[in-house]
């Protein structure tokens, strides 16, 4: 036991050092534990037969049907990004709502929340906001610091607002930890925690966060920006970006706004709604999301074919028709009597399905023609590979960790903390917050949750509530320097005049807001637990 603790400390320190070298994190969290295990086995401190289970762990990841939703949601986000749909949405919203500083700031937050919900890819969102919203904000006289912080923080909203890729991974891990914790206390048939539960649980806290961002940004704009009013007038005259919505263009803008913003919003509502209503699993909803995105992207694509948006519209209508027919119960094919009768409803449904197929094929062909499709799929494969690589590497780490009896040691350690379960919670949250300075969401979830999850969930903490807290906490990992993805991406698009110090300082209030949101969820657990229990019983 004593020597195990020593080896675990060595493992931890070596991991940290390895990660800092800049070697891919995936190689470090798989390779370092293996190396330490080999060295320890020379001293008789590790039983190498533990490692024999490693391929089965990988097969377990390969056969994990929950994770199928991950590449599909990634593809949906990448398609929305690369077909510039999200960009157009942002452009039109800022032009439309950017009359004053206050509304501009609000529109940036709202649009980020929408884009976040649809793409969920931090890098893409932050880059887009940095390129389109930052000039608009600076023009309107919003300070550099507030603009930078606002963009970085809003860009990370996709992690908490469902459907979110990291919530799927977190849901998978929390569910395993929950089952293990319940089994340890003798409950062999616990209520499962699903990804749908987590999506529902994260929705209200996500909206609370949006509200908190808005309140802070509005207060900061109105209190701190008085001396800037002169520059506002000057810049709007020579406006490079015509931000102020003048009356002449207003009606055209409104049409643009509806045409560009409505389809993605409807899609998000359809995808999220079908998961939350329990109609579809996240994987099925993700597939529908990809289909809808294909149609939207093709409708807006540069293919020289005027009827294309119309075709895409009717295809979407066919999909909607299928839903209506299904709801009216007219479509069911009785499998027991295939020779038997097919009602008129079924025939219409088959027609709709064929229309859907034709529309989908057209959309795919168009996106292939304009060189969006293959690029988007390749990008999806790369992003998914990053996630899968970490998952597979982390199972090596957890294997070796258990080989050193790390789970028992952590259990003892956590239960010896004063303050019972609340002490455990505070320590865990602090550790996760600190890890966020060097690692990102996926890595932390896969390293920390299998270790501390079973211990924390053996108390009467609600698993969904705990997951939401972890998610809120981990959102800061994208914002905390030196290694925060959002900051990196923002730095890469922000003009040189915005110094790196400004960026680092700018996110401090937003990290505080994040912590405030956690306190709110701790104080009012119903924020996280009410919606899932309402929807899924």
């Amino acid at each position, binding site marked *: 036991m004593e020597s195990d603790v020593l080896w675990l400390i060595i493992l931890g320190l070596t991991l940290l050092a390895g990660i800092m070298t800049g070697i891919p994190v995936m*190689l470090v969290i798989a390779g370092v534990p293996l190396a330490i295990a080999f060295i320890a086995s020379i001293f008789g401190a590790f039983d190498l037969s533990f490692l024999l289970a490693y*391929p089965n762990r990988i*097969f377990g990841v390969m056969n994990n*049907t929950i994770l*199928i939703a991950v590449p*599909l949601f990634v*593809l949906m986000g990448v398609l929305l990004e690369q077909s510039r749909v999200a960009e157009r949405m942002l452009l039109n919203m800022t032009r439309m709502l950017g009359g004053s500083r206050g509304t501009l700031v609000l529109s940036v937050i709202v649009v980020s929340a929408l884009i976040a919900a649809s793409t969920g890819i931090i890098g893409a969102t932050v880059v887009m906001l940095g390129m389109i919203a930052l000039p608009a904000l600076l023009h309107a006289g919003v300070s550099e610091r507030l603009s930078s912080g606002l963009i970085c923080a809003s860009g990370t909203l996709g992690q908490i607002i469902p459907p979110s890729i990291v919530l799927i991974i977190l849901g998978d891990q929390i569910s395993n930890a929950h089952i293990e914790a319940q089994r340890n206390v003798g409950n062999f048939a616990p209520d499962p925690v699903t990804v749908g539960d987590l999506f529902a649980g994260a929705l209200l806290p996500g909206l609370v966060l949006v509200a908190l961002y808005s309140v802070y940004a509005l207060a900061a704009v109105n209190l701190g920006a008085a001396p800037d009013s002169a520059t506002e007038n000057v810049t709007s005259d020579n406006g490079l970006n015509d931000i102020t919505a003048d009356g002449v263009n207003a009606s055209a803008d409104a049409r643009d706004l509806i045409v560009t913003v409505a389809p993605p919003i409807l899609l998000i509502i359809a995808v999220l709604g079908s998961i939350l209503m329990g109609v579809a699993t996240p994987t099925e909803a993700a597939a529908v999301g*990809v289909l809808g995105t294909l149609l939207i992207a093709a409708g807006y694509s540069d293919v020289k074919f005027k009827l294309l948006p119309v075709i895409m519209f009717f295809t979407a209508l066919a999909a909607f028709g299928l839903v209506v027919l299904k709801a009216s119960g007219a479509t069911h094919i009785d499998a027991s009597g295939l020779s038997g009768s097919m009602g008129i409803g079924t025939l219409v449904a088959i027609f709709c399905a064929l229309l859907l197929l034709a529309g989908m094929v057209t959309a795919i062909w168009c996106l292939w023609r304009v060189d969006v499709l293959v690029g988007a799929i390749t990008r999806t*494969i790369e992003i998914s590979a990053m996630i899968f690589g*970490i998952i597979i590497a982390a199972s090596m780490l957890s294997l070796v960790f258990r080989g050193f009896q790390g789970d028992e040691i952590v259990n003892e350690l956590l239960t010896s903390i004063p303050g019972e379960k609340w002490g455990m919670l505070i320590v865990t949250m602090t550790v996760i917050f600190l890890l966020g300075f060097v690692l990102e969401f996926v890595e932390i979830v896969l390293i920390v949750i299998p270790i501390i999850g079973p211990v924390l969930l053996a108390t009467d903490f609600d698993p969904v509530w705990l997951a939401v807290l972890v998610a809120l906490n981990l959102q800061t990992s994208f914002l905390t320097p030196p290694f925060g993805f959002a900051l990196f991406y923002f730095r890469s698009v922000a003009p040189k005049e915005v110094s790196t110090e400004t960026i680092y300082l700018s996110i401090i209030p937003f990290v505080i807001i994040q912590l405030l949101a956690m306190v709110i969820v701790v104080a009012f657990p119903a924020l996280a637990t009410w919606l899932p229990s309402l929807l899924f019983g």
Partner: protein
Amino acid sequence: MGIRNFIIASANLLHRLNIAICIVLMSVLFIAQITIVVLRYAFGVGFLELQDMASYSFAMLVVLSIPVALRLDRHVRVDIFRSRQQITTQRRFDRFGIVLLLFPVFAMTLYIVMPQVIYSWQILEAGVETGGLPGYFLIKTALPATCFLMLLQGAALMLGENSPSTGIEAAGERHGK
């Protein structure tokens, strides 16, 4: 020199082949999944074969995509210090990582998994669901294939670094965005 060129050339070839396979897998995954949704929700019919096709494609994609990302340098790095290092130092660390971390992990996995996969081939292992698609042994084979590809790409990255003419960096740029 002959062996060095052979390794680099076969790594290039297999990388391109693997990207193509991953693109096909991703497409099959989506098409199978959307077909399942339409058939099930609109018509109330389902086919285990389709379900298996989706999960098989996913299973292979999970592992086969990893060497693609390795080759294109897309795996997450923490570059607090790396961004300030000279290129030679960066490469030294990368070699370090390949020799001390990548090679042992994937060589060991290959060594452990091979007997399992060979056995799976001998009994022509099918999926867990009865009535689903046969050929689960082929899916299992994706893991040793991935290990082999990781070792090969690792070796190619080691060998290719000295001469930019190998096209490894260039390939990374081309697929970059």
